């Protein structure tokens, strides 16, 4: 098969012949040779990688950070109030995981980490152990930037490769991943109030104010982090409301986004054109049961179905 290419070989033929020319691995999967002679790993999709490349960057490795956090005793609550110890514990766990992720990226010489996904789950369904995993791909400029300081910490962003491309073409630079959280106890309605209100249409003002307050607290913390990072704005803000394993009356409001700053002081327009796509998304198979690359064909739908990605 490896007899050389024809002048007008199809792309398929070129792909097959290129693979046939490669010498198979001699030492198997568990080779112990040095890492430097190997390729790099990325969790970017092909589209993301091509756009990162087009923007002048290259992936320098898959980076990850983990944190397993023990949550101490939480006192009994009755009314509406924030449970500060839970808020602190979950934020700290996320910060530990992202700090490790940043350290790994720094060791790889990355300028930043794109596509950071932050997942949190109660280990074994237990309320006192939370596991946080942060994963993303470290990137670095293909050519060293003139103003790139070797001491600067890598930036983290939850933006996808596509979003990062658009952001950089628009003249902005991601500064940091900013987060805000609030774990809130929503007080229960007493028996007499329940009886009194059962047959009436009315706003449950206690519930309204509790949920509203919790959302505002989380968003204010996110804004505070962005301000501390000297950001001009925060893009890609995602919000989630999760009860984890605490039952329906304790909810965590979590907001996350990417703090950005303009490099030139003005927005550069991309001049977008309107388009109508005629391709409907198709899911290949059950995504939850697979760890392969089905998601590459339709990432957005898979992410929304699994609900695991915070990206």
């Amino acid at each position: 098969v490896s007899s050389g290419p024809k002048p007008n070989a199809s792309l398929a033929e070129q792909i097959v012949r290129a693979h046939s020319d490669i010498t198979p691995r001699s030492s198997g999967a568990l080779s112990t040779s040095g890492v430097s002679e190997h390729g790099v790993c990325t969790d970017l999709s092909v589209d993301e990688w091509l756009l990162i490349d087009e923007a002048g960057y290259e992936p320098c490795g898959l980076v990850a950070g983990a944190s397993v956090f023990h949550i101490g005793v939480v006192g009994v609550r009755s009314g509406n109030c924030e449970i500060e110890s839970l808020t602190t514990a979950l934020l700290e766990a996320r910060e530990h995981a992202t700090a490790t992720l940043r350290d790994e990226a720094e060791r790889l010489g990355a300028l930043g980490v794109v596509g950071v996904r932050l997942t949190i789950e109660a280990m074994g369904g237990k309320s006192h152990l939370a596991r946080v995993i942060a994963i993303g791909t470290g990137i670095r400029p293909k050519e060293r930037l003139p103003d790139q300081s070797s001491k600067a910490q890598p930036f983290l962003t939850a933006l996808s490769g596509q979003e990062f491309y658009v952001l950089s073409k628009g003249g902005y630079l991601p500064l940091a991943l900013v987060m805000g959280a609030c774990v809130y106890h929503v007080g229960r309605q007493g028996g007499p109030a329940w009886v009194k209100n059962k047959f009436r249409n009315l706003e449950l003002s206690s519930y309204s104010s509790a949920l509203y307050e919790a959302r505002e607290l989380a968003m204010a913390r996110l804004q505070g982090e962005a301000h501390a990072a000297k950001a001009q704005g925060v893009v890609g803000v995602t919000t989630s409301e999760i009860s984890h394993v605490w039952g329906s009356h304790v909810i965590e409001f979590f907001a996350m986004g990417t703090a950005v700053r303009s490099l030139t002081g003005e927005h550069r327009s991309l001049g977008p054109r309107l388009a109508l796509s005629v391709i409907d998304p198709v899911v290949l198979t059950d995504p939850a049961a697979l760890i392969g690359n089905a998601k590459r064909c339709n990432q957005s739908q898979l992410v929304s179905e699994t609900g695991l990605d915070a990206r």
Partner: protein
Amino acid sequence: MTSHRLPPPARERIEKLSTGAPWSSQQPVGQEAVLRGLGFSAAAVVIGSVYSYGFGFPRPPGYRRAPRLSDVPGPWVDDPISAKRSGAYVHDWAVTPEGKPTGDFGWTWERPLHQERQRKMVDSAFAKLLTEARSVGAHGVVGMNLAFRKLSSNPNISYGVYEVRVHGTAVVVPGLPPSERPFTTGLCGGELLKLAQRGYAPSEFVVGIGGVRGQLGRRTRRRLRSFQNGEIEQFTEVTQMSISIARRDLERQTTNPGDLVVASSPEFEVQRELGSSYDVTTRIAGSIIRKLHRYSTATSLALTPVVPLNDEDW
């Protein structure tokens, strides 16, 4: 990967293909059209599946000694007494400033036997899939997916039945002689087109596996019983090491520095046995891609920013 004998129903299905049975593909219609535009024709959906049973002993003889842990980033120190005894590494909080063990230590080590057992299952499933692919004269297998499932009533034990299944679409290039080593990839038709136009080609579908066990130290036990919030450092380190080893395993399967592994999200399997240990196994599947050095010239992307008029769910 060695060649496997196919079970009778698989042989029968493959034989029918050579006598004019219709081809099959797991690629969506649009992706299939792109594959045909590239010059590929779908031959058949190919499958490899393995059921395996085995034990994971707490600390069997032959556990790999420390050197591979030194690959893993982290503040690990070689405890002078304990390391001699078992080859395990302990964390620096377990050692006094003078380098003596404090008695607080927990053992943490890589599980090569466990990794090799899982590797064998994956290789066996891949070998079956490749046997099917070769039987239909495939030059490659695209859109590969791997599912790893533990069939055990108790998720907290490390032995039991595992099922590994892998499937994809075998493709051929009409006019080319059959390949003994078809390429394998988890990517679909559209992605192959974009890569090829940019001067890259798929090579192999690979899986990285990292298994690490932490034998709980007194400090960890105290933390678990504490009324205060706090990180369980040993659990964090076990998880972190497991991801790092799986990632290194994935990268080791590439053959040159220019290769790129397009990986899926890691999958974690966590076990705690009798409250005395904490095991994490991480698996990451990925597709190796590499430059088409001799055959193609890369073209730059001609990008037109568009705003889709399709309604999308937010």
